[in-house]
């Protein structure tokens, strides 16, 4: 059954992760009617699904908000929602430490407060029609039903450029080495203080040494374990190298990662601090780099390292180049102290298409520039900019549609 939606001339945002939520809220606040299309049944994207508990890209290296607007509003809402949310130093950068469930609840509540946003969960865009410089129609499929949308503007916030791939695979750069994915599980029953320095370092070393002795699977040689939100909580992070076949191998990769997590927990239980540890929750596969668009401008590592500024800047970022090298593990290159760079609107746009933006992790960037720009706070900022631009475009189209008043 194909249903013609009443939501014509809406701003259609695909993906309800960091960038998509921001885009939807910004577009709605800009006066547009918004349709938010989300493949899963829950809001919050990678933070919700992959159990991200340290939100990066909200602060500069002096712990000041790097972008005002929605990223800041998000941090303030999260701090107000749960007393355990806190700003925390990670190396030389600052993050917001938050329980992923609190994040999900907060953004779900937030979206409900905004007017003019219709959310379709369990829905995916299956077809995209383009006429010249405009996306004219989207076919959205949910539980067997198809819905036709005639959008004023489209924002691809799927994180992996799903909408743009439907237009043309060649618009997405998907080859070459890329940041490994992550798999996070939440442990409870850990002795409080078990991960304080230097004990935490010893735990990680033990895992890596065990991998070296083949007592644990080889992929544990890059495993990491981090403080949780609760005193008896810890997050175990696995390192999951992926290539472009990850889409087809998603199930297999996830099963292996879960089995490895369980093996690590068994291994850790031999340590007194982890004797009572158990798996409370497993995230799903977190994709850091699921393909980047070939946009009007490709953000470069040079831009990131040299604090580039742009006339069409949409936001700033000061997060280090955090590249999860498939062979060597996490490589962190901090930007010069006190510096930040800008992301131009052209990195969110494709040549020749006027009413389409790609925001968040699929922005147009080189591999190492992406390794800095892809973080949650920056995704919120990119989403906000694209949402506002899309709302402006939909307002112009509404004006064109208005009948011209007759002269009296």
């Amino acid at each position, binding site marked *: 059954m194909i249903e013609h939606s009443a939501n014509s001339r809406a701003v259609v945002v695909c993906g309800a992760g960091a960038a998509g939520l921001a885009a939807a809220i910004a577009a709605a606040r800009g006066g547009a009617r918004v349709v938010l299309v989300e493949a899963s049944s829950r809001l919050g994207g990678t933070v919700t699904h992959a159990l991200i508990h340290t939100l990066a890209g909200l602060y500069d290296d002096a712990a000041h908000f790097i972008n005002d607007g929605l990223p800041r509003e998000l941090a303030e809402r999260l701090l107000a929602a749960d007393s355990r949310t806190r700003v925390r130093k*990670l*190396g*030389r950068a600052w993050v917001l430490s938050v329980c992923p469930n609190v994040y999900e609840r907060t953004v779900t509540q937030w979206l409900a407060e905004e007017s003019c946003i219709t959310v379709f969960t369990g829905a995916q865009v299956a077809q995209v029609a383009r006429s010249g410089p405009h996306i004219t129609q989207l076919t959205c499929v949910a539980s067997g039903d198809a819905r036709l949308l005639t959008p004023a503007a489209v924002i691809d916030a799927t994180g992996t450029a799903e909408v743009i791939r439907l237009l043309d695979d060649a618009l997405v750069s998907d080859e070459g080495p890329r940041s490994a994915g992550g798999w996070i599980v939440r442990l409870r029953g850990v002795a409080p203080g078990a991960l304080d*320095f*230097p004990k*935490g*370092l*010893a735990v*990680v*070393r*033990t895992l890596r040494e065990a991998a070296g002795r083949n007592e644990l699977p080889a992929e544990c040689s890059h495993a*990491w374990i981090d403080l949780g939100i609760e005193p008896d909580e810890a997050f175990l992070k696995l390192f999951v190298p992926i290539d472009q076949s990850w889409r087809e191998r998603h199930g297999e990769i996830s099963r292996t990662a879960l089995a490895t997590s369980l093996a690590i927990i068994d291994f850790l239980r031999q340590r007194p601090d982890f004797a009572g540890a158990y798996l409370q929750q497993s995230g799903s596969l977190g994709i850091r780099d699921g393909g980047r668009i070939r946009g009007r401008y490709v953000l470069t590592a040079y831009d990131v*390292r*040299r604090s580039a500024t742009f006339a069409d800047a949409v936001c700033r970022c000061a997060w280090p*180049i955090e590249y999860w090298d498939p062979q060597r593990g*996490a490589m*962190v*290159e*901090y*930007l*010069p*102290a006190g*510096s930040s760079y800008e992301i131009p609107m052209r990195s969110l746009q494709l040549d020749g298409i006027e009413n389409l933006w790609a925001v968040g992790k699929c922005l147009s960037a080189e591999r190492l520039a992406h390794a800095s720009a892809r973080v949650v706070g920056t995704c919120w900022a990119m989403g906000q900019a694209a949402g506002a631009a899309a709302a402006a475009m939909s307002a112009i189209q509404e004006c064109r549609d208005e009948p011209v008043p007759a002269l009296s």
Partner: protein
Amino acid sequence: MTRIEATIRDYIQQSFLDGGGAAPGYLRGDEDLLTLLDSLQILRMLMDLEAQFDIKVDNSELTPENLGTIERLAAFIHKKQLDSAYKSLTP
């Protein structure tokens, strides 16, 4: 400054601080490494220094007293080297 200190300083500078083309700032011997480096960097440094100086650091030795500054780390590595030399001499 001892040779070990110089090696550690060069290592930290090259591995963690020169990235991004920042002007290499002078790293003092008593600078707090646990603030300067993140835990991943400390772990990586430890593994690399173990290989470079042919020592084995026990988990129980991971303390601020041993790792906190370049000076302390150099003294710790020197002691480890002496210990292992001594062990190799005694039957």
